[in-house]
Structure formats: structure tokens, C-alpha cells
């Protein structure tokens, strides 16, 4: 077993250990054992940092890969297949190493942060236990080498997300949110599960490598439509987990959870797991599947951005920006900008975690006030938070010199390239939506920064009833606090902010602030070569591509996938690099300046504007009414259906049963009356006659011996007579 494998197993199991210790013994340990969680995560991070170092830095090899697996279930000699085993295993390549380091680092920081943020909560220990199991399952996803174990950990992160969203389960809203999150994820998961089933039913294995080998060997027996379906169904898992368009509704509600949790799960790691998974299965996605994915990503990015504009809850703005950014990543994968999407995943993880932790710090300082309308002027009171938050915001908005700029730009370049490669037309919608959402992102982040940190404190503007509702909801002690009560958070909450902010600067990833492709990340993560090339539905452009392919080969010796389509896209993306930079920078500046115009210089009054475009405003404020639509259709629908079916069950089916019983009973009654009056009549008659005879004969029993003797002799005489008559005749 490779030493890195051993290390990674230790890393995987450490958080589980923390979970087990804390769930059982947190009340026995001092400080509810938070130091256990932090310490264990520290160790885990140290180990994964070592793995990162030895993989990325030492063996500087894009194709690095070590794997190990063991037989988990042995089904013996299965008829028709032969010996069938289900194997679990671990694979470590560059992506894994990076994700490992990222997850453990953010988890460690969140643990540290939570020691301050969650201090004094009555389930303090349990909180850390849940963080532990989440980290465990997240690492499981990262390390798995097969679909089955990924599915397992997939659901386990769903569970831990469920537990953590509903951590304040006394709040009905929290309980609703956790249920909603789990169910939405479940919907995605069944799609993913069906995809897994399609692949298994073909190859009788769950392992990535074997499935890809079989696919590449052309062993996929079903029609190509099935292959596309498999890809899309697996993508459904990502749709659920990464809150893509049809199933995005759970993520904003998930903000009911503690803010560090939002930072860890719903911004940095778990939601990114969907993207990571799509990257894992990238090679089996057919072009058609990729198109769907790209459109879904683009639409999600755009829609979430539009919603984020009008939200007032500081966390909800961040949540929708998360959805939007995830849309970017999915878009990137869809358009084939594989490494760019993963790059954005990592960068986004850091700066979004920073943003959430920052907002957490604000909420903490504001005594659980989450509404940006009543904030303002925090710049003076919380300098650290302000600085880090702003830096992360810039990264998110994608201003040059930040990590976000590089990754988002790479994705947009890929989008343009994709559109060009696919021959334009509708495909240009994708980059357009991408750029537009980039602008929106800049706009709403600018708005947020302004509302929160600049201007004067607006706490006193808050209506009283909101106070009470807020306090009943959050259980803060005193409602009336003005800004000068607000003070900077303690070091254990400050340190993570600083670290994360530092990680959202460009030089961490690439020497060249304008080109992420020159950074170690893009060099280590290469677009893998698709294995479904031979299943492509032959069409004009592809045949055309295959002709251009040879020409492209020479031009891009850097990464030259055999699949002409990928080559084409990579080529176009390369060409579109600088246009993308320009356009996106312009868009960002546009967005920020727009925010400035609206909120700083008040040239445009936001309220008036809102009035002017009220329908649009409401549409965005109400999140495109997705919740209402789902409520009206699916939830009501299934509840109604359930009621109908249960009525059907109790009245129709049971009715039939009882009806049968009734018929039988009536027959029985008829039978019974026959019985009573005819059969029973006979019986009774017999009884009666017997009775009367008895009454008569009773007289005979006089108790006088002689009477008996008389009878006896009469009988004897009778016998005589009988006998002789017989003798005579």
C-alpha cells in the first residue's frame, strides 16, 4: 500500500474519530471537547498538507495517480457474470490532493472559528461532532475511487448537512429548511443513483477506472441515448448537491444553520462536491450531456445573480451568490473548461468561506441581526472583518489581482471558446449569460459592502415588531443595540478570516495575475481525455472537427486530447483568453460602478428604481417564485396524492375487502337462516321429541326396582316373541 494511501486513510478516519468521541463524551470533556475537534482537524490538515506537498510540489506530474482498493462485498460466483465483487478503494491524484488540503483547511478554520461563534450554545459539543462527521464524509467523497462509495458519502454529507442545518431545531424554519435540503438532495441522488445503475448494469462494477476502461473499449451495449442519459442522471446528483437550477431552492433556506456551517458546507465544500463529482465523471459525459450541463450552469449563474440583487438578508445574498458561482463552475465543466472550473471551485471555496465567516462575524457582533437594511457603518468598528470581507468580495466580483478573477476569466474564456467551437448560434447564450452574471455579481457584492460597512448605522431604523420577531427567533438578550456596542470579534474568529482572505489573492495560484493557466493549479489539473468519443452521434460539425484535428495537434502540444471536439474547444478557449479578460473586467467595473452610482452617490434611488420596475423587482425579491411553484406543484401535489391514495386504500381497497367480507357474511346469513329454520329445525324437533319422550320415560324411572324388573322382563318377553316369530317364518 502506498504511503500516501495510508496517510489519506488516516486523514479520512480522523474526523470520524472526532465525531465518535464528541457524540458520546462531549458532556464529560472540558469545554464540551471542542479542543478535540480542533486538534483532530489540525492533525488531519497537517497530514493532508503533507500529501499536498508531496503530490503537487514534489512529484510535479499532471498524470500522478495512486490507487488502492479492497473487497467490500463478495457475491461469490454469480450465474451469468462469474465471480462478482464490490470493491471499495481510494485514489489519490492531483485533484484529490488539492481537494484534500482545501477541505481539511477550511474545516479546520471553521472549527476554530466556531469555538468563538458557537460558544455557550447548549449543544456545543454535538455541534463539533456533526462538523466531524461532515468532514469525514466530505473527505470520503474526495477520496473515493468508485461510484458506490461516492454515493454513500454523498448521502452522508447530505445527512450531516441535514443535521447541521437543523442544528437550531427548535426553530420551525430550521426544521423546514433541513427537511427541504435533504429532500432536494434526495431528488438529485435518485438521478445519480439511476446513472450509477445504468453503468453498473453494463459493466458490473462501480470503479471509475474499470468503467472508463470498458467504455473506452466500447463495451457499452445499450444505445448512446442511454449513455447520455447516464451522464445527465449522474449530473442530477450534482444538480441537487451543488444547488443547480431545478433544485437550487434548498441552499438559501439552508442558511438557517449556524453561519460557520454555511461557510463550510453550503459555500466551500459540500456544494462544491457536486462540481467535483461532475469532474470525476467528466470523461463519460457525451457532448449532448455537456451541452445540457453548460446551459443549466449558465442559467443557474444568471438566475441566482438576479435574485441576489434584491435580497436583504446578508447570508441569503451570499447564498445566492454561491448558487451563481456554482453555476459558473458547472458551466465551465459543461463547456469543457475542466481545469478552469475546478480552479474556480478552489478559489471560490476560499473567498466564499471568507465571506461567510465574515458575515458570521458581523451577525455575531450585531447580536444575530441578519438584515442588511439595519446594518451599516461597521467599517469603523470591525476593521479586520471589513478588510478581509472586502478582499474576498473583490475576489468574488472577479477584479484583477484576485484569485476569483483568474478562475472566472478562465471559465468565461472556455465559454466563448465553446460557443465558437460549437458553431455559434444559441451557444453564444452561455458566455453572454456568464458575463452578464459577472456584472450582476459585482453589483450585488458592491451593494452588500456598502450596506454593511459604509454609511451610518441604521439599527434604530428597524421596526419594533421585527425586533421582537428577530429576538424570539434568535434568542438574543437585548433588542436595542446601537452601532457603538458593536466590537471586533475575538482572535479565534479573526484568524480564519485573515488566512482565507490571504488565500484569495492571485499569487497563491499563479505568478501571472492575468493568466491562471500559468499557475501550478492549471498545470496540474489537465482536462482528461473523454472515453465516449466513439459513442458520439455522428454529425456534421464533429466530422468537420475530426478533419481539423490533425492541424490542431501541432498547435497545442501542451495538452492535446485525442478527442477532436475537446481539442477544438481548448483551442478556441485559448484564443478567447484575452477577449474574455477584457469583457469580464469591463463587466466587473460596470457592475461595481453601478453599485456605486446607486448606493454611494445615490444618483439612482434604489427604491424608486424598484418601484419603476416593480414586477421585475418582486420577481427577483421572491426568488423567481420557485419555492411557491414547487410548493404548489410537487409538495402540494404529493401530499394531495398521498391523501387520495390513503383514502383509496381505506375506502376502496379495504372497502372491497370488507365488501367481500359483507357478501360472504350475507351468504352466511342466508345459510344461517336455512340452518336455523330447516336444519336447526330438525335438530330442535329431535331435541323436542327426545325431550318429550324423556318426559314420558322419566315417569318410568320410579326408583322402584320392581318397575325396572317389569320392564326388563317385558323386553325379555318381547325378545322371545321376536325370536320365535323369526323362528317360525
Amino acid at each position, binding site marked *: 500500500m502506498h504511503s500516501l494511501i495510508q496517510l489519506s486513510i488516516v486523514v479520512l478516519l480522523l474526523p470520524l474519530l472526532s465525531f465518535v468521541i464528541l457524540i458520546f463524551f462531549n458532556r464529560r470533556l472540558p469545554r464540551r471537547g471542542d479542543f478535540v475537534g480542533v486538534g483532530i482537524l489540525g492533525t488531519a490538515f497537517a497530514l493532508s498538507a503533507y500529501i499536498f506537498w508531496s503530490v503537487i510540489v514534489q512529484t510535479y506530474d499532471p498524470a500522478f495517480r495512486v490507487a488502492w482498493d479492497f473487497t*467490500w*462485498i*463478495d*457475491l*461469490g*460466483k*454469480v*450465474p*451469468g*457474470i462469474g465471480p*462478482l465483487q464490490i470493491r471499495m478503494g481510494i485514489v489519490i491524484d492531483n485533484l484529490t490532493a488539492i481537494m484534500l488540503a482545501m477541505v481539511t483547511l477550511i474545516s479546520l478554520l471553521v472549527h476554530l472559528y466556531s469555538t468563538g461563534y458557537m460558544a455557550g450554545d447548549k449543544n456545543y459539543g454535538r455541534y463539533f461532532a456533526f462538523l466531524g462527521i461532515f468532514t469525514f464524509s466530505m473527505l470520503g467523497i474526495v477520496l473515493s475511487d468508485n461510484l*458506490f462509495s461516492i*454515493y*454513500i*458519502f*454523498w*448521502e*452522508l454529507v447530505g*445527512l450531516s448537512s441535514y443535521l447541521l442545518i*437543523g442544528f437550531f*431545531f*427548535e*426553530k*420551525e424554519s*430550521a*426544521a*423546514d429548511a*433541513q*427537511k427541504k435540503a*435533504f*429532500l432536494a438532495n*434526495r*431528488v438529485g*441522488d*435518485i438521478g445519480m*443513483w*439511476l446513472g450509477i*445503475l*445504468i453503468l*453498473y*448494469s453494463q459493466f*458490473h462494477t462501480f470503479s471509475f477506472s474499470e468503467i472508463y476502461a470498458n467504455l473506452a473499449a466500447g463495451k457499452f451495449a445499450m444505445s448512446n441515448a442511454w449513455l447520455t442519459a447516464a451522464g445527465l442522471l449522474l449530473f442530477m446528483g450534482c444538480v441537487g448537491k451543488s444547488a443547480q437550477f431545478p433544485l437550487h431552492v434548498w441552499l438559501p433556506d439552508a442558511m438557517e444553520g449556524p453561519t460557520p456551517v454555511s461557510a463550510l458546507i453550503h459555500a466551500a465544500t459540500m456544494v462544491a462536491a457536486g462540481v467535483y463529482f461532475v469532474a470525476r465523471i467528466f470523461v463519460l459525459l457525451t457532448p449532448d450531456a455537456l451541452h445540457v450541463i453548460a446551459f443549466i450552469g449558465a442559467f443557474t449563474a444568471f438566475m441566482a445573480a438576479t435574485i441576489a440583487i434584491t435580497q436583504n438578508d446578508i447570508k441569503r445574498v451570499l447564498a445566492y451568490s454561491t448558487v451563481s458561482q456554482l453555476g459558473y463552475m458547472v458551466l465551465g465543466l459543461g463547456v469543457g473548461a475542466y481545469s478552469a472550473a475546478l480552479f474556480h471551485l478552489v478559489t471560490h471555496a476560499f473567498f466564499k468561506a471568507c465571506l461567510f465567516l465574515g458575515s458570521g462575524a458581523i451577525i455575531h457582533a450585531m447580536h444575530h441581526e441578519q438584515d442588511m437594511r439595519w446594518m451599516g457603518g461597521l467599517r469603523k468598528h470591525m476593521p479586520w472583518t471589513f478588510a478581509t470581507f472586502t478582499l474576498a468580495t473583490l475576489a468574488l466580483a472577479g477584479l484583477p489581482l484576485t484569485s476569483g478573477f483568474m478562475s472566472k476569466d478562465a471559465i468565461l474564456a472556455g465559454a466563448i471558446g465553446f460557443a465558437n467551437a460549437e458553431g455559434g448560434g444559441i451557444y453564444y447564450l452561455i458566455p453572454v449569460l456568464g458575463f452578464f452574471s459577472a456584472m450582476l455579481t459585482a453589483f450585488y457584492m458592491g451593494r452588500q459592502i456598502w450596506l454593511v460597512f459604509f454609511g451610518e448605522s441604521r439599527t434604530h431604523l428597524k421596526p419594533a415588531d421585527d425586533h421582537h420577531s428577530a429576538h424570539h427567533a434568535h434568542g438574543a438578550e437585548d433588542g436595542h443595540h446601537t452601532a457603538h456596542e458593536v466590537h471586533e470579534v475575538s482572535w479565534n474568529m479573526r484568524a480564519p478570516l485573515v488566512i482565507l482572505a490571504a488565500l484569495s489573492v492571485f499569487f497563491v495560484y499563479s505568478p501571472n495575475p492575468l493568466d491562471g493557466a500559468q499557475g501550478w493549479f492549471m498545470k496540474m489539473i489537465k482536462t482528461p481525455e473523454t472515453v465516449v468519443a466513439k459513442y458520439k452521434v455522428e454529425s456534421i460539425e464533429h466530422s468537420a472537427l475530426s478533419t481539423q484535428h490533425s492541424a490542431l495537434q501541432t498547435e497545442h502540444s501542451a495538452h492535446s486530447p485525442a478527442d477532436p471536439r475537446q481539442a477544438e474547444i481548448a483551442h478556441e478557449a485559448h484564443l478567447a483568453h484575452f477577449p474574455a479578460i477584457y469583457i469580464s473586467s469591463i463587466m466587473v467595473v460596470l457592475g461595481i460602478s453601478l453599485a456605486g452610482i446607486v448606493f454611494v452617490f445615490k444618483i439612482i434611488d434604489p427604491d424608486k428604481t424598484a418601484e419603476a420596475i416593480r414586477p421585475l423587482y418582486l420577481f427577483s425579491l421572491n426568488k423567481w417564485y420557485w419555492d411557491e411553484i414547487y410548493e404548489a406543484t410537487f409538495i402540494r401535489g*404529493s*401530499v394531495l*396524492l*398521498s*391523501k387520495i*391514495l*390513503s383514502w383509496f*386504500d381505506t375506502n376502496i*381497497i*379495504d372497502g372491497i*375487502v370488507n365488501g367481500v*367480507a359483507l357478501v360472504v357474511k350475507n351468504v352466511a346469513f342466508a345459510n344461517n337462516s336455512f340452518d336455523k329454520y330447516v336444519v336447526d329445525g330438525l335438530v330442535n324437533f329431535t331435541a323436542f321429541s327426545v325431550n318429550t319422550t324423556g318426559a314420558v320415560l322419566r315417569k318410568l324411572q320410579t326408583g322402584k326396582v320392581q318397575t325396572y324388573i317389569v320392564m326388563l322382563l317385558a323386553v325379555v318377553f318381547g325378545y322371545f316373541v321376536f325370536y320365535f316369530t323369526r323362528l317360525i317364518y
Partner: protein
Amino acid sequence: MLSLIVFLPIIAGLIILAVPSSQKQIIRIVSLLAALAQGVLAVLIWRAYDPSLPGITAGPGGSPLGSFQFVEKLPWISLKLGGFGSLNIEYFLGIDGISVTMIILTALVSAIGVLSSWTIQKQVKGYFILYNLLASAMMGCFVALDFFLFYVFWELMLLPMYFLIGIWGGPNREYAAIKFFLYTLFGSVFMLLVMIGLYFSVIDPVTGNHTFSLVAMANQANYIKSAILGPDNAMWRYIAFAVLFVGFAIKVPMFPFHTWLPDAHVEAPTPISVILAGVLLKLGTYGMMRINFPLFPEVFHASMYVIGIFGAINIIYGAFCALAQQDLKKMVAYSSISHMGYVLLGLAAGNSEGMVGALYQMFNHGTITAMLFLLVGVVYDRAHTRQIDKFGGLASYMPVYAAIVTVAWFASLGLPGLSGFISEAFVFVGAFSSVTTRYIAMVSVLGIVFGAAYLLWSLQRMFLGKRKPDAAYDLEIGSDGHEHIHFHDWKGKIDLDARELTMLVPLVVITIFLGIYPMPVLGMITSSVNKLVEVLSPVVLR
């Protein structure tokens, strides 16, 4: 060995018969000891079981030895019927991979049932006598390899169940008991007919007589070609299969025949619900695997599609009905209908993955649903109501209970890492891999979502949030300033007490362990299941 494990409870029942009915504690302890001894025997059998032997059909030379294990074979009834020849019924016990898991499950569940019967106060003596009778009958059904013997145990099971529901049940118990009894009787009558038909169609290769031995019946070579159920009479074989299937499907229970289950569960006392859901339902599917399918493989082949559709209906229909229930116990009852649907689906797949999944699902459903009903009983004992809306916020006041409920609920909705998931996963893998049931599987996957829906919804309504205004309990500020919960006329511990923990913790441990490492169970069943699949399908089902 098997005779011992079968008749141990009856012996205990006889001992109890001798105990004066005032000595409740002694009676309870006697049955508990019997159950524990049964458990010990089950563990011994498990340890001594050789997973390499396939079972299902006779081993080399037509003798069950070498294929089955712990075989006990004695002539039992031998009647000369003149014209009909002779009636040879054997006392024929033996186990293979299909039975051994069920034996362990039965021992486990009946032991836990005894513990949970501790609170029964009404006619303790009669209760435990019937209970032990029931335990014996169940065990007997699982080890009997002679159809007649199986039928005897099968019928023997009805009687105590009828009384246990009808006497110790809830307000509407007579209706439920009658319903249960008639339903099952209806099924078993047909079973009797088919049994006779089979008897006259099968020849024991060893003795040359007609035989009830399931082992002989499972081998199509032993059928008389022209007999009523011989290979030539396709139509009769179809009818017999259908009739037998209905007989078992009623026990499962399968969709149109399921309505006895909610009533029986709602009325039955907690331990009986545990037994009912934990073991009795399995008898239906076990009967299918042991009798219905191997005896009519070609009919099974032809009807896989139908069975699969019924399985899917069970899954989704049960889930929906559960979603609509207000009574927690009824919800759990419908959930077990839904979960048995998975078993049917796995069986319908007809390939090893599906069958393994089905069998494993039978085991897991036994443990998990037992857990669910025990938990329902816990809250019912305290609050005397099972209306889901009469609670709320329990998690704050009964943390241990809430934790175990969470584990059980998630196990029931098939969360990975808990045993339920693996079985469901295998069922789907098998059903999807088999071309016949592929689309059925795609539809029934929806069951996962709705299963999660009703479980999480009930979890939220009962445990999360705050106390409902019309809840079945009060809150009072304790000495330590925290809120404490107070049930009317409940003197015991508010959170789980020691007895309840001893019932629940083993199940939780089993559920988690088998969810992480299923081989201890799967290892025993795979060879038998593969053999079964071979028997069922001369052509490979892919």
C-alpha cells in the same frame, strides 16, 4: 439442534403452564430464558454454518446432506391410503443460506419481543404461552423442509397471533384479529391444495414414493411428466404458481392484499407488532424464495414482470399512504409495506444482486422495523397516543430517545452507512441489471424520495420545533431551571429506561455494523442465492 431451537419455546410454554398465573415475574423470566437460549443456539448455528454449501436443491446423490445443513429427517406420518398409494410425511428440518439468516433474525426478534412484553399486565400467563407457541411456529416455518411440516407450522402460527391481537390488542382488536386471520387463512387454504397437487406430482428419487420434501420438489427432474402439476400440465402449473403466490403475497403483504397489515399493527400490542413486522412478513417472501419460485421456475420466469410491477406498486403506494397517516404506528406499518415492496422487486429481478438484496432487505427490515415499532411503543406507553401532531419538540426533552429515533428513521429511509441502504441498493442494482424489470426499477426509485419525505416529515413534526399547543404532554420548569417534560399518568423515566435501552441498543448496533460491513450476513447467503438463481433460470437473466 434445529428441533431444539424450534421446540425450546414450546417447552418454556409448558413450564409456564405449570407456573401459577400469579407468578408473573417467574413466567416472564422463563420465557426470557427460553428466548435467550434460542438466541444462543442461533449464534451457535451461525458460527457452525458452512457458507460454501448451496442448499436449495438436493446435494450429490439426491440426499439433502451435502447441500443443506443441520439436517434432521425422520418419517413422521405414514398412512396407507389404499387407492391413492401411501401418504408419507417426514419430519424434515434443515437450513441453507436462505433460512439461516431468518433463523438468526427470528431468535433476535423474539428475544426482544419478550423484553418488550414485560409491560404486559393482562393475563400474563396466557400471553406468554401463546407467545412461545408463536415463536416456535415461526422458527419451525423457517427450518421445515417438508412442505407438510411447513404448512403445519404455518397454520400453527395463525392461532396464537389471532389471540394475541384479539385479546391483548387495542380498542378495535377483534376486527383486526379476524381480518388478519381470515386473510391469512384464505391464502393458506389454497396453499394446501397446491401442496396436495405437488405431492402427487413429485417422486422422491431416493425412496421412489411420493413426497412432500421441498428439496425433492425443487428439482424439476423429480416431477412426473403427466401429473397434475407435472411439466406437461403448463396451465395447472401456472394456476398453482399464482395461487401459491397469492398465499404468500398476503403474508408479505403485497399491494391488493395488504389492508390487514395496518389494522393488525395499529391494534396489536407493541411486542406483537414487532414480531409481526420483524418476522411474519418475512415468511411471505421466504415462502416465495423457498417454495413458490424454485418449484415453478418457468412460471416465475414468465411472471417476473408482474411481480416486479407489484413490488413497485408496494414501494410507492406504501410510501404515499405512509405520507398521509396521522397515526405514527400506521405510518410505520405502511412504511413496512413499502419496504417489503423492495423485497418483491429484488425477487422479481431474478438475478443474484436482486435476490441478495431482497434477502438482505428481509433481514434488515426485520431489525429496523422492529426498532421502529419499539420506538413507537415507547412514546405510546408514555403519552397514550400515537397521533403525530400531538407531539413536537421532543428532541429537546428526550435526547437519547430522539437520537435512537433518528438512527432508526434514517436507517429506514435507507441512509448509507446503515444496513437498510445496502439491501435497497442491491435490490435496485439487481432490478436494473435485469432487463425485465429495468423500467420498473427506474420508477420505483421514486420510493427513496417519498420514503425520505414521510419519515423526515414525521420526525420534524414529532421531535423538532417546539411543543404543539395541543400536545400530549406538559412542560414544567425543573429545579435546574430547564424545561422538563411531563406525561400524564406516566411514573417511569421520561427518557428511555434501562429495559428499553437493552431492547434498542443491540438493534442499533446491528443496523450500523451491517451497514458498514455486511459480509457477516451476505457471506452466508450468497452461495445459496446464486444456487437459487441457477435453479430459477436455465437461461441467464440478463
